[in-house]
Structures are given as C-alpha cells and as structure tokens.
C-alpha cells in the first residue's frame, strides 16, 4: 500500500523469555478504522500499547506519516487513547477533563471553552460540563473519555476494548456513536477487541491476531467468506470443521474425500492449518442445505433441532460420528421430515480446505 499513514513494521515484543508479539507488520491508511481482533494474550493490546509509547518494541519500527515515533515519549506523540477501564480524572468535572489536554498544551481560555463545547456536542453530552465522573454512568464516562481523547485533534486514536465493561445494549448504542464520530472526524482509529461482532460492526478492516502474529487482515466480508487460515475461519462466524481422509491438490483448489467416501470437488484450499496436522474441511452452518431425495450429498442423521426465532439450528451426525450444525430459515427446516437418513449438500466454493 503506498498511502500508508501509520506503519508498523516487523514489530516484536518480548517480556523476559515470554514472546508477547512475534512479528507484526501493518500499513494503515489515513482515516481508516482498523480493529485488532483476537483472543486474550494474542498480542493485540501489546501492539496498541507500543503505538501509544508505553512499551518499547524489542524489534521493529512504528512510524506516522513516514517518521518513526519510537524516539518520541508518549506525552509528545499527540495520540489519543480510550482505555478499557474508566480513566477520567476523578477530581475534575467533565468539562475540565476534556480541557486537560488543551490546558497542558497552553491553549487560550476562549479556545478551550469552544473546544470543550464542541466535543461535548460531538459525544452528545451537552450540559454535562460540571458533573463529576462519579456521577456518570459507565457509558457516559467512556463517551467523555472519547471526547477528551479527541479534543486535541490527534491524527491517531487508540481504543483498548473501551466497551468491554458495558452491557450489551449500551455497547451497541455506543458502537453506533463511535462509527458516527469516526465518519465526522475522519480520525485514524486503531481499535482492540476480542468481540468479533463488535469488530465486524465497526471496522473498515480487521487484523486477526493469534499467538503474537497477524493471521489475516481484511474487511469483515473478506475474513468471513475467504478465511486464509483455520484460526480465522473458526474465530469469525460459526463453522463446521469436517474430517478429511484424502486430499488431491491442484493449485489453489482441491478435491477432498470425506471419511465415509463422499467426494467433494473444487474446494478453495489453504495451507494455514496451524491447529492440527490433519487436513480439515470448513463449511458454515448456513451453507448447508438438505437435499430432497437420496443419493446426492453427505449422508447425515438429525440429533437435535433448536428453534431460534428467525432461524433454526439443526445438530447433525455424519456417517463417521462427527457432529455438525446446519442453520436455516425456521420454516425451511421445519418443512423437511427430520427423521430417518437424510442428505446435506453445499456449494463447494463456499467451503474451505485447510491442509
């Protein structure tokens, strides 16, 4: 990418003998909303804190606009950050919290008053200037923290799981606010979360972290439809991983023979099976369809049906005893006579072979 604004290259971080981040490189264009998604301990927060300047990289470089920021101490990096925990200054009212970065920078009183007003209206908390942080709800506190982090117009905003302490409904409400604020300000955002739904909802692109490495970077759609590794396929969305007896590879496609002898042609094949040594076939529960009549497809038995409103989930058992899920519109599943031997099929292009 030529227009990279924030660049992380070859970033590595070790704590003693523990390797927190193996090797991370990212090119982030100006104005992008990029999310670091991954399980805890995958290195996503460590990478974010290195950008903030609280941890020095063991190796690699981080640069903004072509200039390395590693030699700049955190208070001179001019980066905004919203933390996982509530970090409003407890002794200062909301207005003074937002004014703090401006006062430190020696802005004029008139300028500060104007900016505080603008920031409060940006996060929709007009009239809250004189409240103390303890008088606000968790969601309001994080919105004030967002206003404070944006008050000095930083080129980069870091967000470290800012909504993880909030309940689901409030979380979704503030996600909408964050999207709107990102669109209104055009600030480049690095966002850390372990919640895939949050990542899909907010981001332009998602970098999936695992064991201190990035497994894949792409839009939510990319990651869902074209996962590069078994880990990404398992982490984004629901998935079935079928055992495979034999694989015949032909370039980027392959044929697989399942344990019961069923042969599936033309499956997109990937090398990234970090988890297991044996090849596996990934297919989404909603890609599976019951086949009318018999003969074609994969023979299964129905073990359980769960009604979920719009959809139903059906637990199936394959001929070799593996359990897989099928999801379909509630009515479509019900019209089938779910007894006796059945067959399911799917479009091979929608499945992925990891070998």
């Amino acid at each position, binding site marked *: 990418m030529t227009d990279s604004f924030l660049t992380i290259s070859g970033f590595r971080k070790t704590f003693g003998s523990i390797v927190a981040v193996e090797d991370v490189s990212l090119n982030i264009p100006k104005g992008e909303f990029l999310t670091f998604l991954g399980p805890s301990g995958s290195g996503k927060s460590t990478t974010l804190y290195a950008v*903030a*300047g*609280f941890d020095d990289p063991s190796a690699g470089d981080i640069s903004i606009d072509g200039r390395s920021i590693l030699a700049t*101490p*955190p*208070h*001179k*990096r*001019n*980066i*905004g*950050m919203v*933390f*996982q*925990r*509530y*970090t*409003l*200054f*407890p*002794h*200062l009212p909301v207005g003074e919290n937002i004014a*703090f*970065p401006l006062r*430190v*920078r020696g802005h004029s009183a008139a300028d500060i008053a104007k900016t505080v007003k603008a920031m409060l209206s940006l996060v929709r908390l007009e009239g809250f200037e004189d409240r103390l942080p303890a008088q606000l709800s968790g969601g309001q506190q994080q919105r004030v*923290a967002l206003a*404070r*982090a944006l008050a*000095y117009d930083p080129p980069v905003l870091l967000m470290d799981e800012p909504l993880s302490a909030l309940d689901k409904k409030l979380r979704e409400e503030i996600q909408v606010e964050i999207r709107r604020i990102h669109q209104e300000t055009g600030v480049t955002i690095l966002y850390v979360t372990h919640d895939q739904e949050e990542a899909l909802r907010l981001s332009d692109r998602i970098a999936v972290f695992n064991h201190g490495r990035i497994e894949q970077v792409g839009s939510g759609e990319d990651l869902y439809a074209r996962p590069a590794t078994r880990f990404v396929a398992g982490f984004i969305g629901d998935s079935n991983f079928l055992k495979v007896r034999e694989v015949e590879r032909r370039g980027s496609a392959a044929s697989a023979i399942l344990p019961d002898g069923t042969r599936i042609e033309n499956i997109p094949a990937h090398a990234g099976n970090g988890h297991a040594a044996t090849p596996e076939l990934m297919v989404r529960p909603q890609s599976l369809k019951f086949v009318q009549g018999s003969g074609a497809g994969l023979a299964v038995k129905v073990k359980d049906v769960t009604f979920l409103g719009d959809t139903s989930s059906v637990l199936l058992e394959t001929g070799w005893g593996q359990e897989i899920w099928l999801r379909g519109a509630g009515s479509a599943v019900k019209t089938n006579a779910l007894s006796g031997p059945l067959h399911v099929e799917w479009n091979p292009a929608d499945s992925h072979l990891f070998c």
Partner: protein
Amino acid sequence: MLLSYDRLGGLRFGLWAITIAICLFLLLPVLFIAALSFGSSQWLVFPPPAWTWRWYGELFADPRWLAAAWTSLKVGALVTICSVVLGLLASFALVRGKFPGRLWLKALFLTPMVLPVVVFAVALYALFLRIGLSGTLIGFVIAHTILAFPFAVISITNALETFDKSIEDAAILCGASPWLAKWKVTLPAIRLGLFSAALFSFLISWDEVVVAIFMASPTLQTLPVRIWGALRQDLTPVIAAASTILVVLTLILMAVAGLVRKVFAK
C-alpha cells in the same frame, strides 16, 4: 448468622453495660482533668470548691509553657511535611516499583511501629549525642519523623494501590509529562490518603513523650515533655490546664479532619 445481636435476649443488657463501662473508663480521666483545670483548689481537690480561669491565666503568662507549645507546633509541622514527602516517595517505590526485596523494604519501613519506643529512644539518643543532634530541633524532627513515617507509608500506599495507573497513563497520552501527570492527576486523586498521612504524622509528633524526653534539652521542650517535667516538680492545676488544651486542640484537629474527609468524599 449464628451469633446475632437480636437473638441475644437478656445478654444484650450485659453487652450494653460492658460497653458503657469501657467508655466511662476511657473518658472519665480526661473529663476529670478538664474539670480540675477549672477548679479553684491548689491541690486538685475533687469536686472543686469553686470554679476559676486562674490556671489558664498562669499558663498563658508563663513563657516556658508558651515556648513548649510553640516547639510542639513547629516540630509537628516539620514532621508532617517530612513524613508525607518521604512517605509519598516510598509509597511510589513500593506500589509501582518492581525490584527484588520490595516486601522486605516495606517491612523495614514499618518497623518503627513495632519496635519498643524506649529501645528506639535510647538508641537514637546515643547516636544523636555522638553526632551532635541531641537537644536540637533537627534531632526532634528526625526522631518523630521516623515514628510517623510508617503511618504515612500505610496511608499513602493504600491510596496509591486503589488508584488505577491507567488514569495517570491517560493524562500522559493527553500530553502531560510523567511529572506533570503525577502532580495534576495522581496526587489530587490520592489526596485523601495524603491528608490522612499528614494528620497521623502531626498527631504522632504532637502527643509523643517518650522519645521527646530523650531528645529534649532544658531550652527545647515539647508540650508533653513540659507537662512531664512540671509534674515531677510540683502538682499544680496549671498542668491540668495545659493537658486540657492539648486534648482540645487534638479534638479540634480530628473534627476538622472529619469535615475535610466528608468534603473530599463528595
């Protein structure tokens, strides 16, 4: 709960009686002293034959008492400053530091609390005689600071442990240097702990007598030392008046402290 107050029945009255007895036992001597300081009898007769302000007049007319009170205030103020500043620095090291022997250091800082005061006083006296600090204001301040320091460390480490360091990090990312962030954000946030540390430090110095007796010289005495000395010479109601003032000042300080805590807590 097995042992609940409501289920104690008649035993409850027994508990009340014990409680009241203990309270009286603690309070009566102080109340007697206060009453005697207003009594007209030269020999501290109780109940007093008549009431008078005379002993307070004598107290305030005597330059030795005033000098002692002034010394007490001076020592107390200096001890408060030294103990809070040192306690703050030590607490940052104990809470934020990651160095081997941290817990041992904390234990060492707290030893003046458990060391017998007399032992400590004798040891310090011997040392101060040798280095010429005995009978000086600096000697007084050092001695009392050592006694007050553990209490400052406890108050401030407690406050610092409950303060989320992310808040200080947020201030730094907002553009404040690490020093400015501590000054503008961390210290105001732990001010209640600092205040407790200051209060404890002052009170410890204010009513400390054992170490002070060793540190004192005929020309440099704190109020408790002066009371002790006067008691050994002659028993006069002026001592009761001085003691009452000591108690009243302490009460006022505690009341102000309670008020300040209430305001801070808001």
